[in-house]
Structures are given as C-alpha cells and as structure tokens.
C-alpha cells in the first residue's frame, strides 16, 4: 500500500535534492569525525537512508547541513558500536562539542577548488605521495618503501604538505578565487 501523499513525496524529493547538493559537505563531515576513512561510503549511504526516512521532520528553510550532520554523527556512532571499535572513536560528548564548532564551509565548492589549485603547487613527488595516501589508502610505511625514503621522512613530508595546503587554501579562498 502506498500511503504517501503527493506532498510527502515532494518533501522527500526536496530533502534528497538538498542532500545531493550538500553531499560533499556531509561526506567531508563524516570523514572529519572518524578514524580512517574506508567506511565513509557506507555511513553516507546510511545517513542518506535516514535523512530520506525522516524527511518530513525537516523544516524547509532551516539549516539542512546542520540537520544532516546530527544524523551523520549518530550514524558514525552506530557504525563504530556495531563494529565494536567504539574505543577508537572519540566519545559522543566530544563529537557533539565538535559538531557545535564545525566550520560551515567545511568542504564546499570554494574549498575544494582551492585545494586543487594548491595541490598543483606541490612538487610532483609529494603529489604522488598524497595520491598514494588518499586515493590508494597506503600507510606512510608503504609509501616510504615505494619511494625509497625513510618512513619518518614520509610522515614529515605529508605533514608539511598538509600544513602547506592548509595555509594555501586559506589564502586562496580569502583571495577571492572561490
């Protein structure tokens, strides 16, 4: 039996559209909360399902990202409890505190554009390492073996690259490239 009214269907479609529009923000938010990013897709999927199920609770015109983030936080907690890895996750109270302080432009278009511009300014070798780290999910030890570097140097290089990117993104976004 299909009990959904046309208005409800419309509301669900709107909320889903909002989710898709802010998907990168929400995904970034999930990545920002949990240790390791390998299960991000699952959690994003679960968040999407819950957002869809609770679509009627969302008041159009209010802050969608903030609402979705609260749901995403619970999904992260749930996920780690199921996997019995909850001791590796920051406590719920801390996550709640963090959510309050979350930047509202965490992973918006301007930030991602800035990141890409900034990546081009890194040396090819460091770009390769970032790719191995973030696209392939390699640990620094493996990157080190591949590059013939010491693991510590890889740590240092990645850490410096991130610092450099952080500074660069701030400048780019402030500089009006967004």
């Amino acid at each position: 039996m299909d009990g959904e009214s046309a208005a409800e269907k419309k509301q669900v479609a709107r909320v889903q559209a909002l989710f898709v529009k802010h998907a990168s923000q929400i995904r970034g938010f999930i990545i920002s909360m949990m240790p390791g990013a390998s299960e991000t897709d699952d959690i994003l999927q679960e968040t999407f399902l819950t957002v869809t199920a609770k679509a009627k609770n969302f008041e159009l015109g209010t802050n969608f990202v903030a609402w979705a983030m609260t749901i995403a936080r619970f999904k992260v907690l749930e996920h780690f409890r199921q996997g019995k890895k909850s001791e590796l996750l920051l406590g719920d109270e801390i996550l709640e505190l963090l959510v309050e302080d979350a930047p509202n432009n965490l992973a918006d278009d301007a930030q991602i554009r800035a990141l890409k511009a900034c990546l081009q300014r890194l040396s090819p070798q460091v770009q390769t390492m970032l790719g191995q780290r973030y696209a392939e999910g390699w640990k620094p030890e493996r990157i080190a073996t591949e590059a013939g570097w010491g693991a510590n140097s890889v740590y240092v290089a990645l850490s410096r690259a991130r610092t450099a990117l952080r500074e660069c993104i701030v400048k780019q976004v402030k500089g009006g490239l967004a």
Partner: protein
Amino acid sequence: MTLVDHIQSYLDGDLVAHEVRELESALSASSEARRTYWKVAQTHSLLSLAYAEQDGADWASLTTSTQDISVPGPSRWWVSAAAAAAALIALLAGWWHFQDTAASAPIVATTQDGSEFLNAGNLHLDLGESREIVFLKGTRVALEGPAEVELLSDEKMRLNFGKIGVDVPDGAEGFTVITPSGEVIDYGTRFGLSVEKSGEMRAEVFEGRIEVSLGKKIHRMEGQASLDFSAAGTELQQGSNPSGYPMPSSTLHWSVDGNFNTPKKHPSGRPHSPNQWSGDPTENTLSTPSIKAASGKGMLQFLSTNDPPSEELDTVASQLWRIVDLHEVREKMGRRPTNVTLSAWVNRINGSSTSDTIFLLGLSAHQFITDELEDGPGVLVKTQTAIESDSDPITWERADLSLQVPPGLRYLVVMLGANENVRNDLHAPEFDGHFIDNLKMTFHAGMRSSAITRHWRGSPGNWSNPKKWSENTAPASTSIAVIQGAGTASITEEIRHLSGSLVLGRDDASQGSLHVKEKGTLHLGETETIIGFNPGASATCQIDGTLTTDGPLYIGRNNAHSLMQVRGSLISTNLIQLSQYDSPTDTRSELEILGGSLHADSLRLLYDQSQMLLLSGTVHLKSLTLGGTTGNATLTQRGGTLRTEQLTLGKGTYLLESGQLWIKMPPSELSNFLPGHPRHPKGDWTLILPRP
C-alpha cells in the same frame, strides 16, 4: 606528539584507545584545541574527497587533467535517487571548470615555521641577513648572507656562494648541495658548508657522514672533520667547529623514562645520580579497574608524603625527582639557549570531599647538583606548575611546563608531585589513588647565526689591516673580535661591527688595548662588549673619536683592571656597567670622562671596584645606579656636567667636588642625597652644586 599530529593520527586511524582518550581530554579542555581539530580535519577531508572522486581513474591525473568530468565513486545511495544524481554530476562538474592559470614552480620547501612555501628557484641573502628553510623531505638548512642559493628539489640545492648549516634527519639521507666546484652528499648528519665567491670551499662535518665530490675525487668525511678546497689544493683535517656556521633550529624528544610501565617501588630520598627516579613513597602500578594507564600498561602512583608518617617529617606533597644529564643533549642542540618543555597526564580516583586534587610539575636548570636539588645552590632557573585534577577517573588531565635554559647546561631536575592541598592526613593512606603517566620531555632551540672569532695578532696596528688579525682577515660584521697582546689596535676610520661582539683582554692575565683615534668611529651592534674578561686580564679602551653601541658595554667582567677613557664621544642606547660581576677587592673597573661626552641609557656602578671620574665634558643618562647592596662604588665629579633622569642610590658614594649635577627629580626626593650641597629646582630638574 603535537596536537596537530595527534589529530591527524586519529583521522588516519593510527591511534590506539588510550591515545584517543588523551585526545578527548585535550579537545574537551579547550575550544582552541577544537579549532585546531577542525583545521586539521578540513584539510584531511578535502584531500580524501578530492582523491576519492578519482575512483578507478589514475589519481595522478587529479592535478593535471582539467578536461575530464569525473563522477563520484561507488555510491550506492544515489542510484536510488537517480533524479538527484544528475544534479550531483552537474555540481561536481563545476569543480573541474576551475583552472589554475598561474602554473608556478613546484613547492620544495617551507619557511621555518611552515607558514610560507618556497618554490624551486633562486634565493638571495644580503650581508647580515639569515634565514632557515625546511625542505619538504625534512632537511633543515640555515643560510647566512651574503649568499646565493637555488632550491632545486625537495632534496637538492645549489650554493653559489655563502655559508650554510645543514641538519639532515633520518630518512632524508641523500640530501645534496651542488657547489661551483663539486657536490656534497649527505648520509644523515649535521654539517656546515661555506663557498667563497672566488670558488674556495670549506666543508665541515659535525656528526654523521658526508661525501664531497670534487672533480673525479670523492672524499668521505665522518665524525668530526673538515675539508678545505682552494686553488692550492685540497686539505682534509680532523676536527670541526660548528660555531663557525649558522645552525638550523632543532627539536629533540628526550626519554625521561616517563611511561612507568614496569611495576616497582621507587627508591626513597632525593636522587644523587642522573637518570633514576627517587623521592617520597611512590610506585609504578598497573592499570586498575577504575583507572586505566594513559599510555602503556603502567602509571606512577603517589603513596604518601613521607615514610613513616609523622608530625615532624610530614611534608605537604609526595614528590619524585629525576636528574637529567644533558651531556648528549647539549651537543645535539649546539650549545645555544634552549627551551625545554615537559608534559604529563594526571588522574585520580573520585574519592571523597577530603581527596587531594592538586598535582605538581617542576623543572629546574642546574650548574651542579646538590642534595637539596631545586632548592639548593647551583640552580640557574626553575619553574613549577600546579594542575587541578577533576574527579572523573576516566579522563586524564594534561599538564605542561616550559623553561628557557642557558646554552651548554649540564643538568635538569624534573619534579613530579601530588599535593596535600585538601587535608594533610598524617596516617596512611594519604593519597587514595593519585597518578601521573606519559611524561614527555622535548628540547627546542631556534636557529642561530655563525660566530667566528678573530684574534688580534698582538703588535700595534690598525683595526682595518687584515694582516693584523688571525687568518689574515679583519673581523666580519658577525665575528667575535678578540683583542689581546701588547700592541694597541687603533681605529682611524669608520668601522661597523654590528652583529659581532668585542672582547678586550680575554684570556687569564692577558692585556688588551683599543684606541679609537680622533677621526675614527666604531659602531657596535646589539651584542655585548667586554673591556677586560678573564681573571688577571688588563684592558684599556681610549676614545678620542666616537664609539656607538646598541648592546651592553661592560667595563670589566671579573678581571684585574679595566679602564675606559673618553675624550671624544661614547654613545650607548643600552647599558654601561662598570664591572659585570663582583670581583676581588684588588681589582678595578674605571671609567674616566676627560672631555667630550658620554650618552647612555643607563649607567651602573655596583661594586667596590667600580670607579668613575668626571673631569670635564658632559654626561647624559636616563638612569644612574650608584652602588649595589654591598659594594661601595664611587663616582667623583671634578668638573663638567652630569645629567640623569633617574637616580638609584645603593651603597655608593657621589663626590661632587666641582661642576654641575642635574637630576630630573624634585628636591624633596633628594633630601638624603649629597647633604649640605646647595640645590636649586629648575623646572622638572634639580641642580646640585659643590659645597661652597
């Protein structure tokens, strides 16, 4: 691990449970920490997003492809929302329309604090300029001008001329410096390299191993060695001198056995020898059901303030000490002012309203160690902090402490304590569950410039004649100029010695004499000048021309006899002090104004041997300190004018026999000074005259 590293490791999934708890404590304690969290997390998530959307494709194309439109990865959820997917694709496509047109050279290094990138390319430093750069692979290079370098990659640079100090960490071996005459390859070490414009080159290794290729020859240098390359040939020698090169900043994590993992009781009494914990009753214990160690399986527990408890012996804290011998640290840190930081985590059981709550962390720097440790003589500087612990045994509270210690320091003493701040129970248990864990010590020293000592050859001659100095080179602006020997060094033109220091009569029983002649001028910078240094040395400085200084000028340190005579002009924007330290009574530190003028920010005569004579001319001071708490310094005025804005009078004597004395204080504040002398208020000033 810094907070940034800690957060990054968390996001990378590299932290174990107790480290996650540490991070929780830090994040719950400060909103600043939470802001840092988001800064790190933002970059992390942006990178994850940017690379994740390259799913299946070659990620290397991320920064090179600007044409392709990528679709996000295996995202099951949007299949069920097909309509919205189109919007998503359109949105993501927008990312790729952005094109960075300013394709600049790759970034290969950053500034010392990581706040600025350095692209591959040229760097030019003028005389007196210095800076530190950090290659992305971790190598630190201190550069000193005049210098011309080219950054080639994250592990290679060219030095056309100039002077560098290099620190290559483990894992960055292979760092290469190309010079006009060859190549220096590093195998994990610290070394210095200087290249003259003429092509002459000198390499010195301070620690580890380097290889210097000159033409077809490869020289391997290990330990402490130096190599000179010039038209005359190549010369290898034993020994090296790090102070001749700029030295990059350095950070050293030092083990203080601070994990308390092995269960044991610590010996009682204050420690007498380095590298062991000792003190009041304390022990290493394993995690308990209610309190888990902050790191590893053990932690330090404070048991009582003393053993056995008694009225007489009771103290207000249970303390544990450790002497840290810095023998190895000071070589690694290069004998420069160093900042020591200590961090520890504290925790206690919930207890009751009578449970004590305060923990102590102390750090003291010692020239030598006595039984009283941080309360004894031999302490140079010390600091202590008290941390209030909360009543939640799940969370650990972090305590931090830092102390700036002098170069070449031999000992540090670390003190850990639990304080009886609520009730001093005389009977056990005094502490019902008080713990410290995960104690860490870090040393950090900033970059320092090179200092070359140039010695005066000893016979009379002119400062600017290079042949009068060691290595036939007049002191460069940054050198330490040491003048000693029977012959006077004379200055007849303008000499700028702005970044180096000047010492007359340095060695025991030496003589040193400098004469700034009528047409000569000597400009000194912010570093110190000492006229007479070691015990027994005699030093004389005559100024008929001009001497200016922005640094402190000590007429005598703790030597036999120092004399400065001014007939020209002496201008200081800093301190002039007659005798830097109190010395035996048969020594003398004298300043004579025989004409001309003296301008100084402050002039201090503190000890018996500090004597000043004003015969004629003018003296302008912001402040004059006459006499310390014990010594009886004397200022005798037989003519001329002395003006000072402030007067601090200790046990010194002012003999006003002739001339005028002006003090910018009302007569009422000067009633005890020079009794019987006529005094006249003149605006803000009081004029004091000799007795009629």
